[in-house]
């Protein structure tokens, strides 16, 4: 589909956007930052002939904080130029197993709000993805809100990725985690891995193995091995399955090693500090 024959709907409110979705359904694709859809148009692989331009929908751009959770509307992620365009809703909707906002959302037990004319539902992040580029979103639904749990002050957190370039590279392997330490003992670990399975996964065995154990090099080795075993990687242009399994061990080991050595990033004041 060349750009010349694409029809673009540009609603000015959420209600109008949902109405258009209800009418056009499978024929229309929502576009937010455009960082994925515009490349599909250029490559001639966009299936839909119509686009729902969300740029002028004011209700989709906010970050709200409540006592128990932080609500993030469809906002930004990704290199400086891409960060200024891309949105978190788009990263979820496009459902790449290598989407970099997704592992942190697994760690934060995010829920995704899907809204349509006359109704809405909230889906836990680990039930949202069905496979590469596939989600539970129905054609008449729009991603309108992402809710994440607040991290407790003192919680360590990390996001490590391996790519060919510091910016813009599609992840070969990524890992996000949060960890609470009490006097050197792990109270809990949450660990999510990206680009190593059809969807992002939580490494539950690794998380269980860490609970109530002292954070030592032996434990880190065990966690990293269990994380590596939890992967179901493919071989593609960016790396072989075997490389991805080994690299998973490496990124998890490195992230936890920094925390053990007191060089990890910590949550202060109830929100993330650092970068």
């Amino acid at each position, binding site marked *: 589909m060349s750009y010349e024959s*694409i029809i*673009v709907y540009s609603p000015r409110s959420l209600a109008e956007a949902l109405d258009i979705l209800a009418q056009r359904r499978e024929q229309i694709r929502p576009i937010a930052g455009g960082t994925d859809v515009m490349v599909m148009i*250029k490559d001639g692989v966009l299936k839909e002939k119509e686009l729902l331009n969300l740029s002028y929908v004011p209700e989709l751009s906010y970050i709200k904080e409540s006592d128990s959770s932080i609500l993030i509307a469809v906002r930004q992620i990704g*290199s400086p130029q891409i960060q200024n365009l891309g949105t978190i809703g788009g990263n979820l909707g496009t459902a790449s197993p290598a989407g970099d906002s997704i592992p942190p959302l697994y760690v934060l037990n995010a829920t995704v709000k899907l809204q349509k004319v006359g109704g809405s539902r909230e889906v836990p992040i680990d039930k949202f993805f069905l496979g590469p580029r596939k989600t539970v979103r129905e054609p008449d639904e729009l991603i309108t809100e992402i809710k994440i749990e607040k991290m407790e002050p003192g919680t360590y957190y990390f996001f490590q990725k391996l790519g060919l370039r*510091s910016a813009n590279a599609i992840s070969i392997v990524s890992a996000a985690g949060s960890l609470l330490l009490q006097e050197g003992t792990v109270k809990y670990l949450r660990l999510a891995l990206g680009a190593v399975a059809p969807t992002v996964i939580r490494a539950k065995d690794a998380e269980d193995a860490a609970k109530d154990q002292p954070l030592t090099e032996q434990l880190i080795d065990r966690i990293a091995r269990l994380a590596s075993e939890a992967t179901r990687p493919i071989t593609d242009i960016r790396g072989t399955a075997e490389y991805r399994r080994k690299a998973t061990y490496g990124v998890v080991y490195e992230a936890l090693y920094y925390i053990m050595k007191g060089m990890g990033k910590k949550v202060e004041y109830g929100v993330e500090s650092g970068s």
Partner: protein
Amino acid sequence: MEITVSFFLNGKRVTVTAPPAKSLLRVLREDLGVTSVKPGCEAGECGACTVLLDGQAVTSCLIMISQVEGKQITTAEGLERNGALDPIQEAFIEEGALQCGYCTPGFIMAAKGLLNENPNPTDEEILEGISGNICRCGAYPRIVSAIKKVVKKGVV
């Protein structure tokens, strides 16, 4: 089907009629004659088409013309003030921060976007600020020293 979109290009209101999914990059070059904005990969990877959208650096190949109604778009053509070059442009010339020059407008606009948000970046923040741009001649060291020079002078 074509649509009519009105936005501000380098401070002046312009109105264009184009297919709604046409990229801002292609509209700038083909309909408005703004040729500092370079097509490279047209997939958001190389940064050659970087412009400022309401003051922030973005790759214009990834923006539909349908998305810029009422927005402020700045390109390298809009950097001069009363005939004088922008300090970033001056520094690129003084440092010889280019070889073939194809990537240069994109790097300059990325630097402009960075300094708009953070007038006093660290060396690391400078590298991060231009990490979305590629120079295949490998002029990176001089590009970085040009931006450092501007930061040191504190003129942007």
